[in-house]
């Protein structure tokens, strides 16, 4: 084969330099430089904080890897560009075999991979597939390049404060890939045109180039053959070494990043992996203060960010104009790592992170809604990083004044408003409520099967006490034997932990755990998704915890709760998924099933719903934080409900209700839009004899 032309390996350049020497040199230099760069990239990872949680549950990891990396499961969430990526991704997988063997062919001209030789059936099939693949990859990259440079989708914009535009880097890499596809095809085409019996499958690049080259002189074909080979070879090694210099590092790191992904949802990383709650007092420092305080996995995240902007596209803080864009958390930290650990030269001693790379307001702006993490095709984590930086802030006393009061009150009174402990159960003393219902306060005298964990906002806030009372009525009507902890209950500490005050969280957790275990209950129910998430994912060794929507769903099915026709048939309902019910705990179906159980109700979903739900503005301590923002998240959310054609927003979280009710007022939509909690909606429609 290719007998008519001298192969790149055998050709003697300038009368003395055999082609194989050139190929071998390229291979050695290419791999050498690549190894050196990777070594430099591993240096900070070696200095990073430990994380021993990434090598457990291997079978589960393999399944996730197959789904999320190999099958690219998250890409079709953005259908057009997702499919482009899937084509390029599979193209790379298929062509890596060819590229690998091609660089050896330049040394040993007859090199063939076992089983994939030209004269073997599998080899022949592979050769046809790879020609079509190269063609598809070429045109996909062309479309991608046109999309990036001419259509410029808004989510790639780089706001001025984050530096220059990234289009050039993206298009440059696409051009390299196209160059690789073209040169490989020309190399093949020249050989084919010179009379070898290789394939030139119809409509492939090889076919096109061989059509062009047919009839060219032998010398011309020989030159084309050689130039295209060495161009491809050099370009390939350049590409390989260029990958770890920017966003295309993900081509190499993605498989590791997805394999080492965070499997559990809803919880927060420990302060330091390997240090249990009892050991926290002995730690010198808490949280992230310098870049090396991030864990090795978090550094791998920085390296793996492909700058695709999907996180920020779904970040409610970003949408509201707060100074946070998750994409740039990754990009800024990556660039800082690159600067601090340069490819050439020694690592610098630069310890500055806060104020020069990350900003205080940026870090406090996050509501930990999880939209960014849900979207990231590379499974990059943000919440743990943000919480870790906040832990550093808290450790240094660097806490916004607006948060210091509620934190102080939580420490002294167990609730962020500093209300009296003994008034925690006063919501049950309401006249209208208490004439028909009594709520047991668990303790020495009273016991029950089920604990209703009310949490602070539903205990103390005038409006949200309605949720507590509705929940209590529903529990009573369902015949559940339940009680509350009363003054023994403290705030669940859900946001206390997420705002970085770990030790206060530990105190609250220990307090509640003791009270719950002493009460002797067999299970726990709550109507507050933040409490639900805390008890389920942050606490340990508690009886099973369910959200009220799960209880209602069950009781409607068993017939213990019967519902009457919807009060107002003219209204259109929509369900706003609370972040800590939906994304963090995947309870999307129960609340919807409960709403749909009301006869005659008309329910539609907003465009952003389910795992793409848009945060209302954040719960817990976020109610106290005064962010810089152009717009309230809640106002944006109310607009989305209106756009969907709904006029009642049903939610299942007291914080969502606070934010959305406020937003309706701010947006001036009182009268045309209403908000109601799921428990209130059902409570109003229960048939009571």
């Amino acid at each position, binding site marked *: 084969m290719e007998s008519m032309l001298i192969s790149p390996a055998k050709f003697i350049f300038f009368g003395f330099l055999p082609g194989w020497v050139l190929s071998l040199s390229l291979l050695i230099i290419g791999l050498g430089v690549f190894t050196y760069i990777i070594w430099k990239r591993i240096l900070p990872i070696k200095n990073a904080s430990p994380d021993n949680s990434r090598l457990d549950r291997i079978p589960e990891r393999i399944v996730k890897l197959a789904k999320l990396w190999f099958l690219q499961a998250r890409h079709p969430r953005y259908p057009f560009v997702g499919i482009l990526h899937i084509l390029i991704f599979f193209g790379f997988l298929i062509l890596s075999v060819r590229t690998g063997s091609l660089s050896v062919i330049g040394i040993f001209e007859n090199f063939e991979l076992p089983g994939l030789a030209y004269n073997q059936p599998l080899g022949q099939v592979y050769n046809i597939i790879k020609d079509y693949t190269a063609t598809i990859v070429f045109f996909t990259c062309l479309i991608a390049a046109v999309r990036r440079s001419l259509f410029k989708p808004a989510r790639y914009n780089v706001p001025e404060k984050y530096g220059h535009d990234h289009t050039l880097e993206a298009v440059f890499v696409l051009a390299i890939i196209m160059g690789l596809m073209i040169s490989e095809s020309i190399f093949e085409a020249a050989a084919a045109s010179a009379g070898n019996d290789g394939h030139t499958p119809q409509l492939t690049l090889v076919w096109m180039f061989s059509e062009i080259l047919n009839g060219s002189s032998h010398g011309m074909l020989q030159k084309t053959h050689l130039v295209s080979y060495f161009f491809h070879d050099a370009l390939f090694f350049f590409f390989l070494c260029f990958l770890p210099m920017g966003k295309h590092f993900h081509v190499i790191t993605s498989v590791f990043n997805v394999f080492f992904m965070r499997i559990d949802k809803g919880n927060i990383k420990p302060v330091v992996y390997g240090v249990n709650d009892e050991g926290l007092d002995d730690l010198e420092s808490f949280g992230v203060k310098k870049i090396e305080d991030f864990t090795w996995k978090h550094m791998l995240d920085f390296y793996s960010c492909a700058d695709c902007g999907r996180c920020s596209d779904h970040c409610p803080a970003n949408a509201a104009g707060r100074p946070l864009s998750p994409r740039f958390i990754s990009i800024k930290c990556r660039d800082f790592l690159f600067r601090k650990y340069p490819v050439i030269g020694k690592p610098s001693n630069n310890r500055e992170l806060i104020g020069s790379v990350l900003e205080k307001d940026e870090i406090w702006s996050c509501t930990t809604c999880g939209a960014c993490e849900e979207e990231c095709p590379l499974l990059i984590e943000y919440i743990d990083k943000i919480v870790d930086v906040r832990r550093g802030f808290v450790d240094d*006393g660097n*806490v916004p004044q607006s948060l*210091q009061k509620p934190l102080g*009150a939580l420490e*002294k*009174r167990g609730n962020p408003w500093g209300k009296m*402990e*003994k008034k925690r159960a006063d919501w049950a003393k309401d006249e209208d409520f208490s004439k028909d219902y009594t709520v047991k306060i668990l303790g020495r005298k009273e016991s029950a099967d089920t604990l209703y964990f009310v949490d602070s906002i539903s205990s103390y806030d005038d409006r949200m006490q309605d949720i507590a009372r509705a929940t209590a009525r529903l529990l009573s009507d369902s015949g559940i034997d339940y009680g509350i902890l009363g003054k023994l209950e403290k705030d669940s500490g859900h946001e206390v932990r997420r705002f970085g005050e770990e*030790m206060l969280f530990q105190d609250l957790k220990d307090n509640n755990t003791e009270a719950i275990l002493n009460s002797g209950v067999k299970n726990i129910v709550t109507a507050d998704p933040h409490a639900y998430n805390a008890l389920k994912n942050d606490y340990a060794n508690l009886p099973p915890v369910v959200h009220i929507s799960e209880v209602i769903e069950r009781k409607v099915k068993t017939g213990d709760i019967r519902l009457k026709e919807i009060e107002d048939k003219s209204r259109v309902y929509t369900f706003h998924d609370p972040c800590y019910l939906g994304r963090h705990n995947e309870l999307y179906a129960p609340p919807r099933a409960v709403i749909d159980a009301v006869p005659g109700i008309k329910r539609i979903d907003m465009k952003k719903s389910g795992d793409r739900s848009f945060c209302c503005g954040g719960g817990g301590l976020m109610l106290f934080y005064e962010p810089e923002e152009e717009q309230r998240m809640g106002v944006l959310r109310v607009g989305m409900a209106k756009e969907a054609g709904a006029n009642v927003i049903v939610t299942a979280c007291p914080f969502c209700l606070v934010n959305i009710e406020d937003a309706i007022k701010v947006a001036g939509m009182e009268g045309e839009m209403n908000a109601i909690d799921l428990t209130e909606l059902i409570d109003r429609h229960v048939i009571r004899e």
Partner: protein
Amino acid sequence: MEILVCVKRVPDTSENEIEVNSNGADIERDDLVYSVNEWDNYAVEEAIQLRDKVGGSVTVVTVGDDESEEVLRREMAMGADKGVLLSDDAFTGSDGMGTTAILKAEIEKGKYDLILTGAQADDGAGQIGGMLASILDVPYASLVNYIEVLDENKIKVGREIEGGNQEMNELNLPCVLSIQTGINEPRYVGIRGIRKVAKLEIPIHGASDLGISADSVGAAGARVKRVDYFVPDFGEGAEILEGSTDEKIEKMIEILKAKGGIK
């Protein structure tokens, strides 16, 4: 620069429901939670920032009972180097002058360049700073919202004047300043910070340590005696709105509309 800050443990008005007790001479203290007087927190933060800038040390001192130790620890967790608790049964019931005399005795045991107090306390009379300067015979500036160290013997301070005006003064050291809130942003002290200083020793100085005769301070020495304590009766025109927050707001708007406050 050696800085001393006088602090006080007070019931936090925002986290308590203050009620007068049955005998009418004090408030009901059973369910109270306490914290550092807010103004004092600003004073300690300012002292720490000054020390970090020019060197020296920060000592926090309080007159109180054993439980007052917790506020000293909190301020030490913020970054104060030393804490001293001035406590003696004889101190109980001191009036402003008595407290000042106790503080003076402690101050004279050391050598301080700068003495800071809060401008006032939640439950106080705003009198300590001025009295202290007077009996120590040193310069005094009140309601200070800016401090700049000029040299070893001189500082420049800004004072907040009614109507939002600002006044600048130069003072010779040593001097006493009473600190206004807003001079800085006091740092947060978490449980972890307090635990870190939990084992540091805090000396307790009583009347004999300070060389004070027991009858000159405390209830015995007090020349100002509290005779009554009550929530004033509603005067003419005063009205307390009842109901839920929404109802209260509605009534409030009605009243404002009715009286022409809003249209």
